[in-house]
């Protein structure tokens, strides 16, 4: 059955193969986004010692479907004198980079839609495009609140992008390649070969900036539901509003996946080089212990849970504190660690830079 499907797949023209590949990524991703919203409400519910959504379907499992139906049937309101084209294209501009970035993510060995040389640069460039959706949404809404909210949010995104980029420079120095698959290969060996240990400060900087880039608590001043009523998307309703949230959750999953790939070896098994070879030869357990997509998904899920956990744990940052953390703490930390890493690379300190 599997062989037959693979043969059929390879007999198709290239365009069809790419389209099928896109479907294989986007459909599970959208399902994951829908159930991340459910997971978020459940996790925060239990963190608050309450149950969370449990009315729609068995134990609330149909809640995301009900939410989607509700949003689809709502009216999309166009504000008076709003620029219609820009107003409607802003949600598209927000979600498009969040989906397009998945093209270079390797899900398993050789399992990326596009195995490009400059994969890391591509990711940096695409994640920097997300800010346009926010700016255009704020401006095209023809509302002072939306414009001010978009300026706040865009300033935050631009600031944290620098720290994020520097953290990626550290990964690039350690791996010696821009290819995302190559970065994972460079971490193979054992758990201790992952970039988590040599690049520990950069790992923290990357994940913190990732949270700030996705406008999530404790950096969610753009939305800040207890202080202001939403920021740049205050004029949006119905599905146009929902697309902003789809993009936010798709970005959360992307940042989690990237953290797993860049610092925890993506699909690499943590038991490689630690357990004897006999353990990997066991019938079913061996396949589970060995490298594979399940490790990638597990590591991504851990970071995704951390996003929800932080939202339930930390109070919101004040705006000036956000700017201070980004510019005066995270960026100096990355620059210092790039210097340390340069010394480590120059003297071939093992096992990472040997």
């Amino acid at each position, binding site marked *: 059955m599997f062989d037959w499907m693979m043969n059929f797949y390879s007999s198709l023209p290239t365009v069809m193969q790419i389209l099928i590949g896109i479907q294989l990524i986007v459909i599970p991703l959208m399902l994951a986004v829908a159930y991340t919203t459910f997971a978020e409400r459940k996790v925060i519910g239990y963190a608050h010692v309450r149950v969370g959504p449990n009315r729609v379907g068995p134990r609330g499992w149909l809640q995301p479907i009900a939410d989607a139906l509700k949003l689809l049937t709502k009216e999309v309101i166009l504000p008076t004198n709003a620029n219609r084209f820009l107003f409607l294209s802003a949600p598209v501009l927000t979600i498009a980079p969040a989906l397009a970035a998945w093209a270079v993510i390797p899900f398993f060995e050789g399992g990326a839609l596009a195995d490009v040389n*400059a994969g890391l640069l591509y990711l940096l460039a695409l994640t*920097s495009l997300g800010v346009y959706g926010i700016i255009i949404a704020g401006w095209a809404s023809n509302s002072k609140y939306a414009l001010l909210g978009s300026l706040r949010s865009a300033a935050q995104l631009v600031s944290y992008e620098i720290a994020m980029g520097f953290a990626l420079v550290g990964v690039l120095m350690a791996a010696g390649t821009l290819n995302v698959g190559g970065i994972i290969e460079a971490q193979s060996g054992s758990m201790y070969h992952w970039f988590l240990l040599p690049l520990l400060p950069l790992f923290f900087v990357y994940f913190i900036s990732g949270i700030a880039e996705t406008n999530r608590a404790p950096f969610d001043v753009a939305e800040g539901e207890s202080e202001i009523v939403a920021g740049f998307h205050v004029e949006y309703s119905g599905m146009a509003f929902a697309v902003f949230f789809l993009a936010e959750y798709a970005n959360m999953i992307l940042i989690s996946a990237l953290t797993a790939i860049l610092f925890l070896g993506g699909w690499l098994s943590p038991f490689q080089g630690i357990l004897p070879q006999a353990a990997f030869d066991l019938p079913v357990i061996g396949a589970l212990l060995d490298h594979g997509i399940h490790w990638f998904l597990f590591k991504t899920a851990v970071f995704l849970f951390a996003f929800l956990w932080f939202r339930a744990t930390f109070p919101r940052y004040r705006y000036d*504190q956000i700017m201070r953390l980004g510019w005066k703490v995270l960026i100096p930390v990355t620059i210092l660690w790039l210097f340390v890493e340069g010394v480590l690379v120059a003297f071939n300190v093992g096992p990472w830079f040997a």
Partner: protein
Amino acid sequence: MTFELILFYLFGAILLGGALAMISVRNPVHAALFLVLCFVAAAAVWLLAEAEFLGIVLVLVYVGAVMVLFLFVVMMLDINLAKLREGFTEYLPVGIVVAVAMATVLVAVITRYITMDVPERAGPEYANTEALGAILYTEYVYPFEIAAVILLVAIIAAISLTMRKRPDNKSIDPGQQMAVSREGRVRMVSMASEKKKSPRRGAQGGDADGQQDDPSK
């Protein structure tokens, strides 16, 4: 006509159309957005020419950072369009002369000095980023470093020009905020427990009223 050629003409057309729209639209925000479109189309053309580093960095630096700040400024400014267009016809002849001169020089330079065959396609093993890095950090290392230092000087100059101390600024020193300890804020008092007494009903003694919990205590 190959697929690549179709893509080249498509992105070329978008680039030229975007550039024309950028100088002709009235709204400055629309003009800035058309400039963004031009950058993206130019990046795509560079990608077709196997210069993926230049293409991606164009998107990363110009689209992702410079144009965002540009849009910031344009959106915040209160631009009076009527005042801007004042005297347009007056300056038009000068503008046309400059434009024609520029175009002539550009065409002359391009047709005379830049004559080259279609470059050969490098294989899939070729990485433009690596090739650029290898030449930048060996042959051109001094110009590269000097350019970096000049940029650093510009950054410091910009910061020192805009940094000023404002006495009416109410900003808080973050170091002071960090240094706050529990001892500085809370005083723990240890004292012996006292008999419950109500100031109003104290004279009547301990009856039913006095045994109820008084929330004000």
